């Protein structure tokens, strides 16, 4: 295994013949069916790229090989949301490549080359992949095209202007010459890249806006896609860690004698987050961990139950907090209004529970560190591992693997998981590859949850039937506080706590949103759509009730309040058209609607709901309209809406992490932390609103509207306004 330096300058990159050396990139295309995913397989993939070492590297993103394949290095992690396909589409468009010649691979960790413009460092999140790469990747493709054309012109001795490029073929009609990209890869590599390149007009797009097949689909239907969990290196040990049973508890003492004598166990070491058990295979490691006798110090642990934490938050919600937004005279309350309504909401802690639990292969060797994992904030992970292992960040290479979902879980400010992996490597005396694996129980009970929130809303309708008052107080832990993103906090307001509420699009004259930072010793994190997971629910159910008090329809009433927000109104009208209105298709059912903007994209949904025999909700169908600017790949956009709806629906129906008396997490696996299953998945119909605006994200925005759409339908069906999530309590 070679360690790749990550401090290459752009110029070095351009000239480097080693960009494809084994270890730099993990290829996504795997040869042969039925092969074991050993390091041999992986080496075969890497060498597949390494054989292209004489290829053309016009910039940090595009690699063109003599065999005509174009590999795009993708700076965003691929976990199903589609950046491998989406970003490759942008390059292929400007390069005039044929889709069949396109490949994608994860970019190495290198903030200078691969930073996310939204963060200033390398990482994926906030549904930014397409939005922040849109121009960058198109320019990367256009640059490569200009250089290939110039190389062809020189070789054919014809004017550049007479050369055309179409579907991966470079042609000169006058001399009847034609060749693929590979033929000019070597010559193009000797040219200087142009400073500036022209990009296509939207009307000339051939690939953007089409459903090109996803690049990672084939290997994800036959078991060949390699995830971190699947890596096996020679001499590798598998490691599991015994974590404390309460958040904030620490190890007091450990008797590891039985663990150490467990067959297959090689080593047991204390690390800051618990006790690490190293073994020949996963099963032995788990048996060894089970044999540990640990006594924990709970002096500084969070020992309150979630019931107690919720009650404390409810108390605080009775008074306004720090002002996040205000207009008119909200402090006058309901005085002079015809009707008023006050409602209190509670939202539980939520685990992300991605299908692949957290895992990392790490090998510290000769003053360098090589790692393979689903790193979502590479720059932070790289720095954290470097600090713990006493090397420079540039000596830490990260192979960003396909990850089995994330939903926010792998994007860790402060990098606690990368830190644990580094400590696991540091604590073991021998230099060897180590695979740290969390079990599902570690995952569900391991914290870093969507924060528990309480919202209190007061609203009112005046004598003319206008919604005239909206006063919202939010209580919840701050996600950004104390993190690498703390600079985002302005005037004491963590924007991720109030997003989707403080920017309520409805024209209500007296309006206020205030925030209390809730305190709890439970580690928290963003969860697919972050603050919008709760603000969309409280705002879209509350406005539904106020409109009903005002005698207005859910769609018409909202439209009347959305005067200054045409894109909200656009998706709302589009979804109403798609669904044919809010009348249910048969008796015993009802429909509800919600509209919400998040991460720059606008989504409206209508859900049709009935009641199961056990009186729980059954969602039959969801209609969805999305406006995300230019639709780069409509198929991926529809898939993200479908998946976002299923993800949000499962959480709204079933999910809560509760702490029992004493602070232990009550749920441990998918039995009590229920996931939505196929028979609970509604049919979904999606329409994409045509737009010329620059593209915005789709990974998260499909999530927020589904829970309030369901709740509004449920209230219409049963009269029951659900204000404490989830809908179904699982004991």
């Amino acid at each position: 295994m070679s360690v790749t330096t990550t401090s290459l300058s752009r110029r070095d990159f351009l000239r480097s013949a080693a960009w494809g050396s084994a270890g730099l990139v993990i290829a996504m295309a795997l040869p042969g069916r039925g092969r074991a995913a050993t390091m041999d397989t992986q080496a075969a993939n890497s060498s597949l790229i390494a054989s292209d070492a004489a290829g053309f590297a016009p910039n940090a993103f595009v690699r063109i090989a003599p065999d005509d394949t174009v590999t795009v290095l993708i700076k965003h992690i691929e976990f199903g949301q589609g950046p491998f396909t989406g970003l490759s589409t942008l390059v292929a468009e400007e390069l005039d490549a044929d889709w069949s010649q396109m490949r994608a691979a994860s970019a190495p960790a290198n903030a200078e080359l691969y930073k996310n413009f939204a963060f200033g460092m390398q990482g994926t999140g906030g549904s930014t992949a397409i939005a922040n790469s849109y121009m960058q990747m198109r320019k990367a493709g256009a640059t490569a095209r200009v250089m290939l054309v110039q190389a062809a012109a020189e070789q054919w001795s014809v004017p550049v202007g007479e050369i055309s490029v179409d579907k991966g073929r470079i042609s000169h009609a006058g001399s009847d010459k034609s060749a693929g990209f590979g033929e000019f890869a070597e010559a193009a590599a000797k040219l200087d890249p142009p400073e500036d390149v022209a990009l296509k007009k939207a009307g000339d797009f051939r690939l953007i806006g089409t459903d090109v097949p996803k690049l990672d689909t084939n290997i994800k239907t036959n078991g060949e896609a390699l995830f971190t969990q699947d890596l096996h290196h020679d001499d590798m040990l598998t490691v599991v860690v015994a974590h404390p049973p309460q958040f904030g508890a620490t190890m007091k003492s450990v008797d590891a004698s039985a663990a150490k004598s467990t067959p297959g166990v090689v080593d047991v070491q204390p690390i800051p987050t618990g006790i690490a058990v190293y073994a020949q295979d996963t099963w032995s490691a788990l048996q060894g961990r089970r044999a540990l006798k640990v006594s924990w110090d709970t002096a500084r642990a969070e020992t309150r139950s979630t019931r107690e934490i919720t009650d404390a938050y409810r108390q605080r919600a009775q008074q306004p907090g720090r002002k996040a937004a205000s207009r008119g005279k909200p402090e006058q309350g309901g005085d002079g209004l015809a009707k008023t309504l006050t409602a209190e909401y509670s939202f539980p802690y939520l685990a992300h529970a991605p299908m692949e639990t957290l895992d990392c292969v790490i090998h510290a060797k000769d003053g360098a560190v090589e790692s393979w994992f689903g790193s979502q904030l590479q720059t932070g992970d790289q720095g954290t591992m470097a600090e713990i292992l006493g090397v420079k960040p540039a000596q830490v290479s990260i192979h960003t693997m396909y990850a089995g979902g994330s939903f926010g879980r792998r994007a860790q400010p402060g990098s606690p998981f990368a830190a644990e992996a580094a400590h696991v490597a540091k604590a073991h005396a021998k230099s060897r590859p180590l695979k740290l694996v969390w079990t599902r129980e570690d995952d569900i009970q391991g914290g870093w949850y969507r924060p528990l929130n309480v919202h209190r809303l007061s609203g009112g309708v005046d004598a003319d039937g206008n919604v005239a008052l909206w006063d919202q107080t939010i209580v919840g832990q701050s996600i950004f506080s104390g993190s690498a993103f703390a600079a985002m906090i302005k005037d004491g307001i963590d924007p991720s706590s109030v997003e989707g509420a403080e920017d309520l699009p409805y024209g209500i004259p007296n309006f206020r949103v205030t925030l209390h930072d809730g305190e709890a010793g439970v580690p928290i994190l963003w969860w697919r759509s972050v603050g919008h997971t709760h603000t969309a629910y409280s705002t879209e159910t509350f406005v539904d009730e106020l409109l009903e008090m005002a005698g207005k329809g859910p769609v018409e009433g909202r439209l009347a309040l959305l005067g200054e927000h045409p894109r909200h109104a656009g998706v709302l009208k589009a979804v109403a058209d798609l669904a044919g209105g809010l009348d249910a298709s048969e008796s015993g059912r009802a429909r509800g609607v919600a509209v919400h903007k998040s991460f720059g994209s606008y989504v409206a949904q209508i859900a049709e709901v009935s009641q199961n025999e056990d009186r729980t909700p059954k969602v039959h169908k969801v209609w969805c309209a999305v406006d995300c600017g230019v639709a780069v790949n409509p198929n991926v956009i529809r898939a993200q809406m479908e998946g976002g709806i299923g993800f949000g629906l499962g959480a709204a129906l079933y999910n809560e992490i509760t702490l029992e008396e004493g602070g232990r997490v009550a749920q441990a696996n998918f039995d009590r932390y229920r996931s939505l299953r196929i028979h609970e998945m509604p049919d979904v119909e999606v329409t994409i609103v045509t737009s010329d605006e620059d593209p915005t994200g789709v990974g998260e925005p499909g999530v927020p509207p589904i829970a309030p759409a369901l709740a509004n339908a449920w209230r219409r069906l049963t009269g029951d306004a659900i204000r404490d999530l989830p809908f179904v309590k699982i004991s």
Partner: protein
Amino acid sequence: MKITVNGSSHEIDAPDDMPLLWAIRDRLKLTGTKYGCGVAQCGACTVMVDGQPKRSCVTPLKFAAGHDITTIEGMDGAEFEAIQTAWRAIDVPQCGFCQSGQVMTATALLKEKPAPSDTDIDNALAGNICRCATYVRIRQAVRDAADTLEA
């Protein structure tokens, strides 16, 4: 312990209560079969035991011995081909981690019921969790595969 996987016999030096999943993944290094929960809740570890879909994470090696085990790497046949083709045609996978288990279970369904109803599909696949919620497309792909087989 001696187990037969994808037509080959393998001697596994492991305790007989070790789940088949870990023998397949850690010893045979056939990694298409995934660990998702360890308690037969998610279906990511689905393999065929004598042609029937089973959860390898709760199948001890001693119960696997003497049976014919097939992982996704060893699957073939008309139903499997039809399922894979249908999966690919509409880009079912997102993160992809659960998809081996989905494909195995869907293949087993079509072998038993070549023309399943939507309820049959839901019942057969209710044990396979997809956190990306690709369920709409899974359902469609199974229908499409059934149509292909019928034609």
